[in-house]
């Protein structure tokens, strides 16, 4: 009896040790992940915080981390900076009225009637007084300066027009590859996948010359929109993989009922593939939102047609010293993509996994 009890105790002790070790591992690994995440996302916090500062604070390395303004004080119709002044009675917050090399004159904002106070020392060594103050105004200012409404309109029209085109073309092509046998099917599919690793530059020069010189479409959106009306390899691949998982019986049933190939595709296959179609639409939307090189070369000389990417880059060149406005504009440009991602992340992530790993 006694022996058995002892053995039980030993077991529970072992169990306790194991659980304690697990708990420690959990805490340790989660804490490590939290710190890593903090460092990884730090620029995002920096961007958000700095976009709410004044220009002066964003350029001052010794300023507080959070949005603040330096305090000033009106004295006899003039505005003076309030500084932290060390005195015999501790640090006082006084406004600097008369600057001198060896000694300066201050006034106490709490008691201006007392007149000027002499202080011995170099005022340049004194730190200003900051109070928290959030510059929400930076956002409307950035929005208007960059004419964000126009950039947003251009980008959205481009994204939606090409999204519709590429989804229709890609799903037709994917259905052809998924369900039909035709000569050179494997070779054609290999070529399709090969276009993923083809550098766009190799086709760009003649395409550019054709669009701009022959058709005279420089400065318009047409050279950017039309090539995307023919589908693209990523989307075709993703949709084909999805179509392959749809049971053939449903199409056969539809065909027995007298539906033609096109009808079967539209009324049987497409409704089944909504998750994949959503993923492809989202991928395309993000691609269009980020597209830079095409707009840069084709829209050169027509600033009114710029999308957000090129507009932001120009804005950065013109207002590079206005850090707070640049960051506010950068944050405005990421709100929509991030919101869509957080709402639709499941479909989105599945799509990426299918294109990358396939099953």
């Amino acid at each position, binding site marked *: 009896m006694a022996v058995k009890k002892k053995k039980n105790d030993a077991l529970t002790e072992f169990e306790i040790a194991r659980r304690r070790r697990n708990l420690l591992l*959990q805490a340790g690994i989660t804490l490590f992940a939290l710190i890593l995440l903090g460092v990884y996302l730090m620029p995002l916090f920096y961007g958000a915080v700095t976009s709410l500062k004044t220009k002066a604070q964003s350029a001052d390395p010794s300023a507080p981390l959070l949005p603040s303004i330096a305090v000033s004080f009106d004295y006899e119709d003039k505005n003076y900076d309030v500084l932290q002044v060390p005195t015999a009675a501790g640090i006082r917050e006084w406004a600097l009225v008369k600057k001198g090399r060896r000694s300066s004159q201050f006034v106490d904002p709490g008691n201006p009637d007392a007149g000027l106070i002499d202080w011995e020392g170099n005022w340049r060594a004194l730190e200003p007084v900051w109070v928290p103050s959030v510059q929400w105004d930076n956002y409307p200012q950035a929005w208007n300066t960059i004419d964000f409404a126009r950039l947003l309109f251009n980008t959205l029209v481009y994204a939606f027009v090409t999204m519709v085109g590429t989804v229709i073309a890609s799903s037709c092509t994917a259905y052809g*590859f998924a369900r039909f046998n035709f*000569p050179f099917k494997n070779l054609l599919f290999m070529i399709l996948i090969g276009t993923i690793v083809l550098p766009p530059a190799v086709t760009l020069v003649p395409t550019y010359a054709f669009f701009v010189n022959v058709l005279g479409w420089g400065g318009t959106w047409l050279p950017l929109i039309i090539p995307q009306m023919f589908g693209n390899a990523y989307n075709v691949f993703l949709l084909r993989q999805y179509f392959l998982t749809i049971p053939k019986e449903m199409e056969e049933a539809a065909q027995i009922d007298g539906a033609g190939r096109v009808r079967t595709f539209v009324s049987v296959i497409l409704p089944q593939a909504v998750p994949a179609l959503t993923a492809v639409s989202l991928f395309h939307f993000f691609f269009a939102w*980020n597209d830079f090189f095409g707009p840069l070369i084709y829209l050169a000389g027509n600033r009114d047609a710029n999308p957000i990417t090129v507009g932001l880059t120009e804005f950065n060149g013109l207002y590079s010293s206005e850090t707070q406005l640049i960051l506010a504009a950068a944050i405005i440009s990421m709100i929509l993509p991030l919101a869509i991602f957080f709402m639709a992340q499941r479909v989105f992530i599945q799509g990426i996994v299918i294109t*990358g790993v*396939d099953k």
Partner: protein
Amino acid sequence: MDMFSELDSARGSPRLLDIRGAFRLTGAQRVEAKWGLLFISPWLIGFAIFYLVPMVVSLLFSLYDFTLSAPDEARFIGLQNWSRMLFDDPNTWETLFVTFKFALISLPIGMVSAFLLAVLLNSQHLIGKNIFRTLFYAPTMVPLIAAILIWSRVLNPQTGWLNQLIEVTGIEAVGINGLRWLDDPNLIYIAYTFIGLWGIGNAILINLASLQGVPTELYEAASIDGAGWLRQLWSVTIPMVTPVIFYNLVLSVVGLLQFFIVPWVLNLGSGYPEGSTNFYMIYFYKQAFTFQNMGYGATLAWFMFIIGLAITIFLFATGRYWVYYAGESK
């Protein structure tokens, strides 16, 4: 199985280049083929117009001296563009060197980070996995231009938070001898790599999916044999995810050859500091679109294509020896 292994299996297929068989079809097969070709016609037409023809014309352009502003003065010069590019133009090799130098720094850091983050996000001990996965992916959703603008300020030597954070750990970063990320040719590639690390979300995700596909029996067997965590990572996990590593490697190499947007947004392709950001694609852009030198631009583009193709073929050839495809007999 990933998409590239699918290509391998297609290569072995007898249908692929069976030209005589292709035309010996029964009536029903012919109808099916007609419908199949009809369905893929959007892509097929687009491929002909926007890939096949421009590639050939691009090669022809490379044999001409041709400026866009004066198309009538275009004249055939044979291989002069090619010999100029390969032997007389020091920019070709300098910009290629810059591109490869950056790739050699950025590629391993990016791929190892994506893999290790995936291992962390796959850990059974991590609490709140889904939230962590979403948040680690989020920066990939930040539009690249916005990311570059934010990073360019975070990397500011005095007011940027990165140097201030490093300063807290006791290393001098902020002062005059501090870390001038975007102004120091020795640090610029690391700085660009940081910006690149905000785009590894997709690589993390497919690494993660691949890690979840590793059969647990393998780990059990390894642990019975006495293998510790590190040994299991090296001998079980890594071999099992090599297909995904291979896929990421091919896409990253092709992407890095075309590295353009970051140096363009940060300093309009001026090469600052000290020419360290004169990437090949920037040089191509200047020749083709700034100087409108279509013939020479096309030559540079074709050379990039040849280099990319050579690297891809090399990777596929060596992939046989280190990429492990489960279910394939070797």
